[in-house]
């Protein structure tokens, strides 16, 4: 039994075979309950995940990270005793002590949703060009401003059961981060940010989103607003 039996880590993975087993086993030292959503990977991600003690859910086809998160949350919500839900990246850039910190905020009932932020405390690890783009994204987004967020595109989030049940990610691709912030802004849930450290390893740098992808995200979001 662990003090984190009521926490579920949701890890979306797409072609992360190289690192996924290490990341999952590393996280499992603290968090016994992990569900990895293999988003139709074409590599051997699923085999690697199967060697770990994590739950594995496999999309039969590749749908995108947003869809994988939603699937993982739905799976975790169905597990008995699950009260807190953390979204965690598969490439090893997030760290479990940050999640513990964030869960504590929820346990103390100070918020319903805790988002990780790379910018509350300057740790100098974020490459400067990325810092400029992400800060701009956070400051031009009306919803992020409403919530006074400093970092609207951080993949590390911890949700209470109430928040996880309400969240319904429909943007399958990478625009889900903005969609989540938009949902939180209109939900009336208490949202807070906690500083987190991001490990920008060679691997995560290579796998991470290119800045040009930001254009795609803006386009996706614009179309979503229009098609409402």
């Amino acid at each position: 039994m662990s003090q984190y039996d009521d926490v579920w880590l949701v890890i979306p993975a797409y072609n992360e075979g190289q690192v996924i087993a290490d990341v999952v086993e590393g996280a499992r030292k603290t968090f016994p309950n992990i569900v990895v959503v293999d988003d139709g990977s074409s590599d051997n991600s699923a085999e690697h995940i199967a060697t770990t003690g994590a739950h594995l859910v496999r999309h039969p086809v590749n749908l995108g990270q947003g869809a994988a998160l939603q699937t993982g949350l739905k799976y975790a919500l169905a597990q008995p005793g699950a009260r807190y839900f953390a979204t965690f990246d598969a490439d090893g850039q997030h760290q479990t002590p940050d999640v513990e910190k964030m869960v504590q905020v929820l346990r103390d009932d100070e918020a319903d949703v805790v988002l990780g932020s790379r910018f509350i405390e300057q740790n100098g690890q974020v490459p400067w060009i990325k810092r400029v783009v992400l800060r701009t994204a956070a400051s031009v987004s009306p919803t992020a401003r409403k919530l006074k967020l400093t970092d609207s595109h951080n993949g590390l989030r911890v949700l209470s059961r109430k928040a996880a049940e309400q969240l319904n990610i429909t943007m399958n691709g990478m625009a889900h981060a903005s969609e989540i912030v938009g949902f939180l802004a209109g939900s009336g849930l208490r949202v807070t940010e906690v500083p987190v450290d991001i490990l920008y390893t060679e691997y995560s740098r290579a796998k991470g989103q290119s800045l040009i992808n930001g254009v795609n995200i803006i386009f996706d979001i614009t179309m979503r607003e229009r098609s409402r």
Partner: protein
Amino acid sequence: MKYFWIQLLLIAGSVSMALMFIRTWGQAKNRAWKRIAFSVFVVVNVYAVLRPTDVTWVAHQLGVGRGTDLVLYVMVLAMGFLTLNTFLRFRSLEKKLTDLARTVALAEGARHNDARLGGTPAVVAAVKVEVEVEPKPEPAETDSASASTSASASDSVKA
């Protein structure tokens, strides 16, 4: 008739398009208003090809110089609608695909994880359900279908 050949070509195109549309009448679930719209489109098409001066007259009434220009503007509009329609259709298909894939993934995941990670109750339930299904196969079912049902049931019993 100096326009004879081009008119023949365009009308042949319209008529073959109409024929193809009528042939798929029963196959695709075409809504009534789409059928009407398409029929009107073909009739207007043929009329415009035969009486281009009438189109020019309409263009003049709208303040456009030539009939061909009017047709071009209408085409741009139609193209835009078509693109939007296709985009929305894809969006709704993508949503259906996502729901389907998620349902499959969750059902499969629950089954496999219980077997792999040692949870038992759900496995027992799954086997029980399949065994209940087996004894009374639908009479309409083919042999291969009932064979696969029993195969999958025995698989999960092994698991």
